[in-house]
């Protein structure tokens, strides 16, 4: 039998190839005990190479392999951000007990696999790649959450994430099926044309399909009411994993969310924008009020993640290029602040015997600046106070919303932010304004991974410092980041206003 192999644009594909190579290499490393120690180096090398290749492909805008992938501004920008957060996570993972238990190489292999899935997802341009890439990044994450085998929470979070996640993907799959049925196509632009030509823009079949796809994605970016896994998983999973997934998952899912809804489903914006607006509102409220009175820092960040997802979703609702820009900017800012926060938490955990309770932060402001400052900056940024990137991000979102006459959603965001101040500021208050409690200092003996020197480890301090510095820097000189974000938006110029 004969078949004509598709033309392969290796340049465009290079980032994926690099990641795949890295992944395979990592698996090999895992196989041989004597070389395990180089695993982090391999991982970092892979990520850096990928980043380099992505930057090389900065201006690319081509479909790969019969348009099953599309490498363009959107893909490049989001992939870069994903790679950055992965890099941070890898650094934080060094010396993490979970890594040590499952074998560091395996751990990193899973992480790389996840990254690969994400990068692929940012480029996914038809339903099949969409689905497979989504699973490729989710399934390793399920495993990663469970990798701290000693802690019951870890396994529990893993299983919860897996089951709920699978329900989500099943729903997504069914929705895809319906859309495929309605449009008779799997490639995004083809779907758009299929739907319009078939006159099925507002057909029940299509709409239900869209609804189910929306649910599936909403789950991934933890939009209420599909968010409930988030706090549990954030808290239960090993902190480096949380640090990775909190930003990266959102980045990947939002990338495909943008591409699918603004390319494939662009003709029927009027049908879905209200749904998304309502979902955004719900998560803003639920996330913010849920975060109040949390005692676990990671858990609180989980809820705040829900709220932040709500803010970001607003960027899609407006269905304008500016909306995409704003969303991208916000995601980038969110990456920085989140990384800062989690890096600080990792350092703190390692010193304080894996307690991430907010109480254990009392008096840190005096005793441990390396934790206090990044965490403070992160909180201020998440709360959207100047002069941090968070402020500009909100500003950008507001502009996009007002431009598109979604002002009420902007007001919702403002209200949500007001509520959020309560818990963010409480953390800052605990850090700086309460006397140190002895509880925060005494470390459970023999706990693996406890490391009183953590605040001097370069691989922990560097992410914290860089990330928090970035949150401030882009608050004062946002223009570069704005242009960065606009690069993503421009990719869709031909599809949306």
């Amino acid at each position, binding site marked *: 039998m004969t078949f004509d192999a598709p033309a392969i644009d290796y340049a465009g594909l290079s980032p994926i190839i690099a990641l795949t190579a890295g992944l395979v290499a990592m698996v090999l490393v895992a196989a041989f005990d004597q070389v395990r120690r180089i695993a982090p180096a391999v991982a970092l090398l892979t990520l850096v190479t990928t980043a380099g290749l992505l930057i090389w492909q900065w201006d690319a805008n081509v479909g790969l392999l019969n348009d099953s992938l599309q490498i363009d501004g959107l893909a490049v920008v989001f992939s870069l951000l994903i790679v950055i957060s992965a890099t941070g996570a890898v650094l934080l993972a060094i010396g993490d007990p979970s890594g040590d238990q499952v074998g560091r190489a395996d751990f990193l292999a899973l992480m790389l696999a996840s990254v690969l899935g994400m990068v692929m997802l940012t480029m996914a341009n038809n339903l099949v790649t969409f689905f497979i890439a989504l699973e490729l990044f989710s399934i390793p994450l399920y495993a990663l959450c469970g990798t701290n085998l000693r802690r019951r929470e870890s396994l529990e979070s893993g*299983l*919860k994430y897996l*089951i*709920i996640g699978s*329900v*989500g993907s099943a*729903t997504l799959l069914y929705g895809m099926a319906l859309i495929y049925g309605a449009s008779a196509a799997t490639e995004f632009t083809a779907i758009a044309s299929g739907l319009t030509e078939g006159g099925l823009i*507002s*057909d*029940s079949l*299509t*709409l*239900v399909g*869209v*609804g*189910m796809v*929306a*649910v599936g994605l909403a*789950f991934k970016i933890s939009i209420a*009411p*599909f968010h*409930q*896994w988030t*706090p*549990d998983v954030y808290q239960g999973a090993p902190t480096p994993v949380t640090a990775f997934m909190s930003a990266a998952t959102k980045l990947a899912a939002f990338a495909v969310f943008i591409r699918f809804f603004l390319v494939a489903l662009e003709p029927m914006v009027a*049908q879905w924008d209200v*749904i998304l607006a309502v979902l955004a509102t719900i998560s803003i*409220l*639920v996330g913010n*009020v*849920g*975060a*109040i*009175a949390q005692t676990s820092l990671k858990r609180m960040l989980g809820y705040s993640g829900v709220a932040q997802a709500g803010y970001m979703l607003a960027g899609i609702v407006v269905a304008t290029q500016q909306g995409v820009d704003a969303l991208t900017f916000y995601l980038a800012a969110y990456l920085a602040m989140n990384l800062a926060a989690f890096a600080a938490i990792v350092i703190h955990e390692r010193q304080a015997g894996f307690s991430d309770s907010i109480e254990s932060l009392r008096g840190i402001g005096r005793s441990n600046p390396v934790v206090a400052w990044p965490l403070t900056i992160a909180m201020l940024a998440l709360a959207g106070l100047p002069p941090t990137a968070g402020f500009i991000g909100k500003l950008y979102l507001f502009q996009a919303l007002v431009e598109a006459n979604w002002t009420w959603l902007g007001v919702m965001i403002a209200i949500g932010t007001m*509520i959020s101040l*309560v818990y963010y500021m409480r953390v800052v208050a605990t850090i700086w304004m309460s006397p140190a409690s002895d509880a925060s200092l005494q470390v459970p003996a023999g706990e693996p991974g406890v490391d009183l020197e953590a605040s001097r480890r370069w691989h922990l301090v560097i992410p914290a410092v860089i990330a928090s510095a970035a949150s401030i820097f882009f608050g004062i000189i946002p223009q570069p980041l704005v242009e960065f974000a606009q690069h993503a938006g421009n990719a869709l110029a031909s599809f949306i206003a």
Partner: protein
Amino acid sequence: MNAASWGWLVLLFPLLGSVLIGATFRVLPARTAGLIGIGAIVAAFVCGIAAVVSLQGEPAESRHVTDSLWQYASVGGLSIDLGIYVDPLSLFMVLVVTGVSSLIHIYSYSYMKSDAGYHRFFSYLNFFVFSMLLLVLAGNYVLLIVGWAFVGFASYALISFWYRRETATRAGMKAFVINVVGDIGLVLAAILIFRELGVIDYGAVFEKAPEVFTTTNEWTAVAICLLLLVGAFAKSAQMPFHTWLADAMEGPTPVSSLIHAATMVTAGVYLVGRSYPLFELAPAAADVAAIVGLVTLLVAGTIAIVVTDLKRIIAYSTMSQIGYMFVAVGIGAYSAGFFHLMTHAFFKALLFMAAGSVIAAMANIQNIDRMKGFYRAMPFTAAMLIIGALALSGFPGTSGWFSKDEIIDFASFRGGWYEIFAIGGYIGAFMTAIYSFRIIFRILPGPPCEEAAHLIETGHVVHGEPVNPATGEKEDVEVGYPGEDHHIAEQATGMKIGMSVLGFLALVGGLVQIPGVTEVITHFLEPTFEDSPLAAMHPSVSEAWKGLAKGAVISVVGIAFTWWLYIGRPSVPETLRRTFRPVYTLFVNKWYGDQIIDFLIVRPVKGLGRFADRVFEPFVINGLTGGTIAIVRSAGGAVRDLQSGMLRSYALLMAVGTVAILLYLLIRSL
């Protein structure tokens, strides 16, 4: 040098004196401070005379000079100059103020000797004189208000001069707050004037007023005048703003004599006289002034008859006398009013000084029931007291006789319902005679009380424990209240000079204004009131003399009656008191003025405060904040309950969400 420049100098000296003393109180020996104080005022007095001279040089119609240092404030057409307005009236006031002040300064030089707060006293006193002069020289209403408030402040500072006494501080607070109420009246008046006339300077205002208020008693004009009167009454302790004056006696005696008898309290009269063009356009308001004056003079008289605190008696008599002045300016007897203002300044200051010397001798006991036989103990003081009392009760020939009766004459001369002012005036005069000589007959004659006796024997006064006469509590000598060797009574030269000069003036001061003979005041003030129809008319000389005769009779009879009351039949007062118990209680409780104000104003305001503090803040204000927080928190609780940790319930919620969304979309697709 024209009158205006002299006027500025008049202002300058007291200010300099005050600042100088205040600034150098650490280094300056006490006496020098006193001398500086005196010097400043005397200099001001001299400049005042110079100003008069240079002003009299002018032709009558142009005897008013305005001069402005710089623009004080100017926005949106409302421009205020830092300017003065020099004319006979203001200069007249300047002379009275500076003149009396100089004497009182001299008196205080000895009286306050050995008071720990000596510098403070003279600094304040000079500042007061400065403020008073600013008040009378001010060239526009805003600056007037400034002076107005400054004298209020000075009076506050001096009333609570012995701030160790809670009674004193409370009295000071009372005086200040009531005066601020008056200030508000003035402020609103000024604003209203500006709104109606578009100007704020005296000259301009008086020019434009007739053009704007074409008909008499336009409500705006009346409103302006009434607001002015609020200020005037508050400052001059007229009803219903009179309650602060009696308490103001907490201050050192020279203060009572200067501020609360001679000068500040008469500012209200000056204000009305100064704004006469407005008042003549709103006769209704003028009548209000007169009526209030009348009521006050009667009420205050009744109180003065019954109270037993020496200084308070004189204080109430002051209120009563100011009542006369208000009647005068109210009915248009301007020159008479200001004449009485002058004479009153003389004899009332004198009375206070004498009283002060007695009180000193009594080791600060002010209750006249305890005083007896000071005639022999302190002949000089006694003489001064008698002179003062004579003048006050309008004994023929004394200054009070001429001035008071001129007012009453004018009232009866205007006739019509103005007669009641005449009648009331005579009644008041009778009462005046009674209370002034009540003092004399109670404390001078008879067997000396122990203090007096001690003074006679040792030639020196008792060294009583310094106590607060009001509460009887021990005094803290260091914060300024007389030290051990304070009781120099009348021996001190300073006091002698002060008293004797004033005594002389109280006796002969009236001669400047003998009807038909010397009408100096009238002529002097004429240019100010030249275009006032009321000022133009005079009772004929004969009528004037008739009136004086009546007055003479009343005062003599009154004095005689008083003699009979306290010397002839000492039992009578007691029987009277018993027979007219209710009336007596009413009088002795000062017609319950304090209680009424307390009930009407103080309590409601305090109640409001309590309400705001106890109810409004916790429930409403904090409710707004706490309430929102509570709502959010409870919502958070709900979310957390939903987050049961049960995986299947998570799935359930997802399913619910999905079903709901699909439902919406299905409906949407129809």
